[in-house]
């Protein structure tokens, strides 16, 4: 076949050569493929990544509440980059530079934004010869030892009929609180956080930086749909993960339509710069769990690219939801009668007499009646428990939205009283009493114990972490499992339907509503 095999390379040496190659594994793999018919043996075309890690553009949660310590102001919080792994540091997470992080407010219920607060970030590297985040202990935000820093601008866009009528710079070059990479690097992280709270004209405040993920739930309830048992419910899946937060406190009279019409709608989006240079919306979030629980898989990406104005497209997902039917099929709990106008109220219009604006156009956003005073003692089930200052009237950090959403989806508002939930009732970290309210991020130097891993594990590996031996091989090894499940759930892959199945976790709790 070839002139070379008969000349310089004898039988023995060729065999040696081939076997040598095989031993490395390369040809072996080829050989295996070669055994299957019609398969290509090598790549001759570009094979670009199919899966790409881009969490900076992932909007995870939005909160809106009347500020408990400044009741004439309203606080908005939006989070990005889920599952920031602090363990074993130093890990750091930056906002993307080629993104616009937007907070939207609709103050007249017409499903069109009236205000957009647009956060854009810049990254600064002091010394690009090193890849270190910090080169020594960081005492302040402008410490020269903090090698990689970010600053941001806020632009305020005022809109009418979805067109910008006024644009102004609301904040300029504000420093971002760094990632909490560890005790040795950042001995007084709280001080750094404090320095990142920035006052704006007119009594407003802004903050951007790392925080503990305030969302709490047990995603292990996923298992139930497949017939797993309930013994493991009750762990906060998101415990000890951080997020990147943006928080904005605004004088309420600046954003509400009028004192007579104090109901606002809030949502958040991420725009990403495309190859052609245009910004395109790649993520959207208002009410918690809607895109996860209500929308079927095929609609999720479309929802992320859409605006509230077009939410009629998703109406059927709400009036005829999949989840209760699925639960009925598996657990024989009767699904409430359709069409579910009760869900349209809660998820798309707001509750009448509480947070439904007049002439409301059904659309998905968090609706907050800013005239309702903050509760002296917050109840985690919010409105369902008679605390009208909480979810679904806006959303406070401590509201147990999973339990509330479950109960509502299963007919709580249409007479099917139930006590469903996931047995995780509060966040693992305490929220702050003052702006920005979110809890301090978990430190990167808390050591390997917290996750039951050993120091040899690759801590940068989220999934890997979940899979590392934790000194036990039983399936009940706490964090290992839940971590992984959380990853799947919040990223909205297959799990969306299943969150609700936690309803089988019946608890003896008295309802006041």
């Amino acid at each position, binding site marked *: *076949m070839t*002139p*070379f095999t008969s000349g*310089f390379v004898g*039988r023995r040496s*060729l065999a040696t*050569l081939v076997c040598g190659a*095989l031993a490395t594994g*390369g*040809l*072996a*793999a*080829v*050989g295996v*493929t070669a*055994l299957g018919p019609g*398969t*290509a*043996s*090598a*790549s*001759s*075309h*570009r094979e*670009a*990544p*199919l*899966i*790409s*890690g*881009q*969490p*900076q553009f992932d909007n995870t949660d939005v909160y809106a509440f009347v500020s408990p310590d400044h009741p004439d102001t309203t606080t908005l919080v939006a989070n990005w980059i889920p*599952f920031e792994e602090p363990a074993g540091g130093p890990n750091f997470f930056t906002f993307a530079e080629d993104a616009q992080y937007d907070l939207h407010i609709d103050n007249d219920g017409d499903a069109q934004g009236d205000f957009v607060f647009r956060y854009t970030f810049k990254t600064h590297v002091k010394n690009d010869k*090193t*890849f*270190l985040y910090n080169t020594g202990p960081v005492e302040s935000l402008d410490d020269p030892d903090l090698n990689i820093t970010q600053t941001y601008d806020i632009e305020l866009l005022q809109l009418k009929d979805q067109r910008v009528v006024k644009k102004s710079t609301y904040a300029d070059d504000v420093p971002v609180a760094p990632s909490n990479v560890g005790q040795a690097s950042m001995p007084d992280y709280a001080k750094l956080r404090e320095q990142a709270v920035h006052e704006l004209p007119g009594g407003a405040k802004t903050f951007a930086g790392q925080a503990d993920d305030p969302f709490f739930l047990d995603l*292990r309830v*996923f298992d139930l749909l*497949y017939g*797993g048992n309930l013994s493991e419910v009750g762990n906060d899946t998101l415990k000890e993960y951080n997020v990147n937060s943006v928080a904005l406190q605004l004088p309420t009279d600046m954003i509400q339509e009028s004192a007579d019409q104090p109901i606002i709608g809030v949502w958040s989006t991420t725009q990403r710069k495309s190859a052609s240079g245009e910004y*395109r919306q790649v993520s959207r979030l208002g009410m918690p769990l809607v895109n996860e629980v209500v929308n079927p*898989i*095929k609609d999720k*990406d*479309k929802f992320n690219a859409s605006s509230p104005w077009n939410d009629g497209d998703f109406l059927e997902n709400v009036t005829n939801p999949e989840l209760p039917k699925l639960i009925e099929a598996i657990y024989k709990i009767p699904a409430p009668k359709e069409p579910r106008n009760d869900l349209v109220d809660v998820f798309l219009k707001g509750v009448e007499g509480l947070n439904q604006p007049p002439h409301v156009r059904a659309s998905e956003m968090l609706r907050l009646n800013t005239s309702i005073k903050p509760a002296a003692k917050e109840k985690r089930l919010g409105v369902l428990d008679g605390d009208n200052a909480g979810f679904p009237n806006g959303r406070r950090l401590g509201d147990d939205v999973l339990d509330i959403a479950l109960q509502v989806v299963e007919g709580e508002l249409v007479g099917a009283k139930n006590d469903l939930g996931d047995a995780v009732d509060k966040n693992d970290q305490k929220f702050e009493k003052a702006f920005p309210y979110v809890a301090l991020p978990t430190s990167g130097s808390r050591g390997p114990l917290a996750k039951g891993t050993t120091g040899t594990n*690759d801590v940068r590996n*989220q*999934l890997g972490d*979940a*899979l590392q031996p934790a000194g*036990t091989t039983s399936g009940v090894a706490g964090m290992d*499992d839940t971590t*992984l*499940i959380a*990853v*799947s*759930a919040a990223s909205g*892959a297959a*799990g969306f339907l299943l969150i609700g199945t936690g309803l089988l976790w019946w608890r003896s709790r008295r309802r006041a509503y």
Partner: protein
Amino acid sequence: MAPGTNEDAQEKDRADVTPPPEGEDRPDRTDRPKERPESPRARMLRLGACAVAIAVAMTAGAVVLGNKDDNGVRTVASAPGVAPELLATGSLASSISALQTHLKAQPKDYGGWSTLGVAYIEQARTNGDPSRYPQAERALERSLKLKPDNDPALAGRSALAAARHDFPAALRYADKALDENAYNERALSTRIDALVELGRYKEASKAADQADERRPGIPVFTRYAYVRELRGDVTTTRRVLKQALSSASAPGDIAYVATALGQLSWREGEYKAALTYYEQALRADKVYLPALEGRARAQAANGDGKAAIAGMEDVVARFPLPGPLVVLGELYEARGGEEDKAKARAQYALVNAWTALARANGVNADLDTALAAADHGDRKAALRAARAEWERRETVHTADALAWALHVNGRDEEALPYARRATATGYRDATFLYHRGMIEQATGNKKEARSSLSAALKLNPGFSPVGAKLAKKTLTALGGAK
């Protein structure tokens, strides 16, 4: 990126390997060997080599395809549908075993099956392990059986078909997935891949614009850049790849995008820039094979033959595919030491063994293989392969391969239109220009030959240790550079 990822790029401690870079890196050519009929002895050798290879391969295959999932300690009892996006941030192998364990307990999780399928395909890509394809197929079929028309699984089928070079099927599945979900990022991406590989460049360009509008992100950016490069728009290609690199945080993304920038720089003759990008890629993944190979090529072009040979030996030891084998052989030839000719021939012989193994198993010889064979192996077989590939898809790469295969078989008049077609879109590849110039020279088109060879050497004078030398010699004979 954590500082911890800044590791020694030279370290060679990992067992898994990656495939050689993709279509743009053609093996370099040298003088045509005189063809001889295959002697009985050569035939025996070939069959013997195949038998050994296949025997070992099957043993290895049994391990790969066997009950690997059942072994080892797994701590995870359940892990529903891990989102493919998150696979990018961690170790694919451990994610895959988690999914396997989960799916054993929850076999009805169609989302989990589709994610597993995609993870297998991604593993095949990054580890150069095509034995994953049948596994991917089973997982994706299972997902579709549980829930027909679920777009993640359809997009996975599209990616699998593309990986197996069944581009019409890839296009079909991508369209099906997009019917379900017009925003499916993987389907948008593989649709571009399929159209590019089928040579339907106009449609590919449109598809890239549409994908960029719907799902801007690294998977789409890398395709968008390539579609522009195929049209000769290097400025846009570089800008978009740089944008992708600056927003990349997962090591796999950084390695891929930095390598793509390195390859672009190399094709443009900017070796220092290329080396910088390859170092960046290797900081993210110290054994990323396309970067190791690209670095060796750039070192060779930059005059550092010693480092190039060491680097390419490393690449070939990890994964002996035709492209790198040919380059290594040519580097030996260019070094010209006492034993180098024999060493070079050993590399070419390995190419032949590889090709024979593929053919003996009914596998279509790949384009890389055809080009390697055209220069250093069975020229007739190379022509057969190139022609068959051209009949399947008319791309600049298949046109170039067919032109060159015709040329080495002495059929220059037939070769000429294909050589012209290979350069017609404006795609800037010195090898294509070199091939075209040599064919023009052989057909008596001296002026054109001079212009093509000048362009090749001006663009990327180090495109091949052996080819560049021949190009220069031929150009001198034609009266020097234009």
